[in-house]
């Protein structure tokens, strides 16, 4: 257990880096930007970070990632504000928060609902960070012995759990994912140096940049979806004064069981890249079934806010663990952050903990501080953000379009990317309306090259025999887990048939 003590020393140094005044300032800026991004329709964690990524190229990697991760935390917080006050989930993972959050706001308990939401977010995130601190180094240590076959098996597990866990039909999830892999393959093949899938179009020589895809799919697509709903926002005003905060905090410990359960659900769903959205729904559903006040859920029960918010934040934060330790991001935003690491010349994965210990522990320490800074900031600035939401959509929409276009351009200083962004935007609208999940597509674009490389290297070492993925205990057990995760819906079906139950509650 010498390693754990060593890691605490690293963490201590990390706090030294993170608590540098400049970095604290970046945290505050990041959180505020993140909340704005989370509150505005069309901007979310993933594309917000994607748009701002080029601005950080001139910073040191540690400062840059502190800024970007704080934007991510801010976006997670921001989603709750729109859900509670406007009944509009700013982010998909805060949909479940609207069920009880908005009824609370309607009955004049907006302050209470927001305090509960923010505090549970904080608790969920904190739980996940503690877990990252304790487990990530061990996972990384373990992953150091991975060869290409094991690496591919981890990717397989990650993508298979998408298929098994998402509520969309498996065939749609697979198509979405494979489109991502195909787009990643376009351009120069890194192994043979050959051009492929470009069909002689020079603009495609460099392949598709996932940042452009993220900005288009999530940004433009979201604006088009919002337009469908019309231009009007009608919201509740919110004031949070210290008395309400204190009163709510006194009631919250009563729900410790719900919190703990949601934390665990969130962490699990975040590590396997199922993501924050299913985690929040699952936590809400279970809380509703288990709670004494279950019947009152949907009418403004504070526990119905605590459960999904805790889980969403635990999942959002836990998504950082596989990104750091394995190089496999657990959410689209984590995927964008991973892309950032690559651009800064850092190779995510187990070696990061060895070679860039200062960076990793600075980042982990900044997660602790960032969430504390975030909680204080959001509790004090809610009225400000609520007023941003009152700006009519006919002003917000063109401004967001302009921001997306600028963001797409600055990725590679290429105007062709701006047009590609629009194409992805229309695609995103179409896919979302027809229930294709977008997260696997984005993750596949980011991970496509690494997954393919691992796949080909593994096959190369075995001379083309697919049995290499079952060649030893380690790789077979990861592949086995992947198969279980991917076939989970079928397994569940079989179980319920065996038991003779007719209806299977998802």
């Amino acid at each position, binding site marked *: 257990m010498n390693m754990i003590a060593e890691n605490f020393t690293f963490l201590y140094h990390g706090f030294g880096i993170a608590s540098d005044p400049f970095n604290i300032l970046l945290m505050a800026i990041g959180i505020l930007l993140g909340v704005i991004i989370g509150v505005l329709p069309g901007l979310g964690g993933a594309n917000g970070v994607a748009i701002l990524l080029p601005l950080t190229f001139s910073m040191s990697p540690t400062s840059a990632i502190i800024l970007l991760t704080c934007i991510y935390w801010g976006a997670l917080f921001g989603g709750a504000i729109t859900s509670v006050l406007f009944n509009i989930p700013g982010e998909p993972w805060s949909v479940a928060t609207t069920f009880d959050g908005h009824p609370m706001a309607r009955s004049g308990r907006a302050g209470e609902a927001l305090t509960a939401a923010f505090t549970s977010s904080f608790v969920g995130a904190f739980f996940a960070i503690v877990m990252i601190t304790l487990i990530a180094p061990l996972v990384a240590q373990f992953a150091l012995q991975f060869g290409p076959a094991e690496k591919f098996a981890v990717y397989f597990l990650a993508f298979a759990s998408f298929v098994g866990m998402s509520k969309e039909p498996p065939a749609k999830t697979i198509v979405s994912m494979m489109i991502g*892999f195909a787009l990643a393959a376009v351009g120069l093949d890194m192994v043979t140096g050959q051009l492929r*899938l470009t069909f002689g179009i020079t603009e495609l020589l460099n392949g598709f940049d996932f940042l452009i895809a993220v900005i288009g799919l999530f940004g433009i697509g979201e604006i088009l979806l919002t337009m469908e709903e019309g231009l009007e926002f009608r919201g509740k005003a919110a004031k949070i004064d210290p008395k309400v905060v204190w009163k709510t905090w006194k009631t919250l410990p009563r729900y410790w069981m719900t919190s703990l359960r949601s934390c665990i659900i969130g962490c699990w769903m975040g590590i396997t890249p199922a993501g924050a959205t299913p985690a929040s729904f699952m936590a809400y559903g279970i809380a509703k079934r288990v709670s004494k006040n279950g019947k009152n859920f949907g009418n403004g029960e504070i526990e119905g806010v605590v459960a999904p918010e805790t889980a969403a934040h635990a999942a959002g934060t836990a998504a950082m663990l596989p990104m750091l330790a394995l190089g496999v991001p657990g959410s689209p935003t984590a995927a964008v952050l991973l892309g950032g690491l690559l651009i800064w010349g850092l190779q995510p994965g187990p070696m990061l903990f060895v070679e860039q210990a200062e960076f990793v522990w600075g980042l982990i320490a900044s997660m602790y501080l960032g969430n504390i800074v975030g909680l204080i900031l959001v509790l004090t600035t809610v009225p400000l953000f609520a007023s941003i939401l009152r700006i009519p959509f006919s*002003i917000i929409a063109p401004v967001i379009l302009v921001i997306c276009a600028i963001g797409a351009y600055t990725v590679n200083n290429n105007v062709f990317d701006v047009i590609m962004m629009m194409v992805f935007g229309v695609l995103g609208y179409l896919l979302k309306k027809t229930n294709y999940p977008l997260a696997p597509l984005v993750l596949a674009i980011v991970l496509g090259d690494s997954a393919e490389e691992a796949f080909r290297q593994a096959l190369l070492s075995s001379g083309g025999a697919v049995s290499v993925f079952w060649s030893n205990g380690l790789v077979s057990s990861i592949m086995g887990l992947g198969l279980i995760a991917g076939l989970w819906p079928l397994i569940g079906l079989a179980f319920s048939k065996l038991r003779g139950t007719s209806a299977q509650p998802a």
Partner: protein
Amino acid sequence: MEQSHHGAESGPKQRAVEVGTALLTLVFGLIVLYGSVLVGFGWGSDGPQAGFFPFYVGLIICVCSVINVVSGLREDPDEIFAENQQLVQVLKVLIPACIYVALVPFLGIYIPSVALIVLFMVWLGHYGWPLSLAVAFGVPAFFYITLERWFLIPLPKGPVEAMLGL
């Protein structure tokens, strides 16, 4: 997110769009297959050829697209994708946005941005000209100062900016 349908609204059917999307992904899968065959998808002298991985990716896309076509055909034939009026709303944003990105390569980002914001505010938002113009010039000016001056990130500029000497 799904619209409640009372049967009275008209618009394209969800089923048609589902099938259309699946056919679209099928075509995409075929393109990927074709592109992989072009560069070789077999086993070369030095291991898997460049098209090896994309070939199977394309194959899976095709198989799953066919599944999606079939399951799309089985959907409720009455459910609508979106009401016509909603689609008009979407097009009101989509068409100007497409023109906007088409203009950026020629005019730079600033002039089209001003035009886009004015168009939205005056046409869709029914705002007065003074406020619209203020926002339309204020937003690009903000980005000019923060990005080009502070972060030294150049944005695309066209002939008009060149005339102004920016």
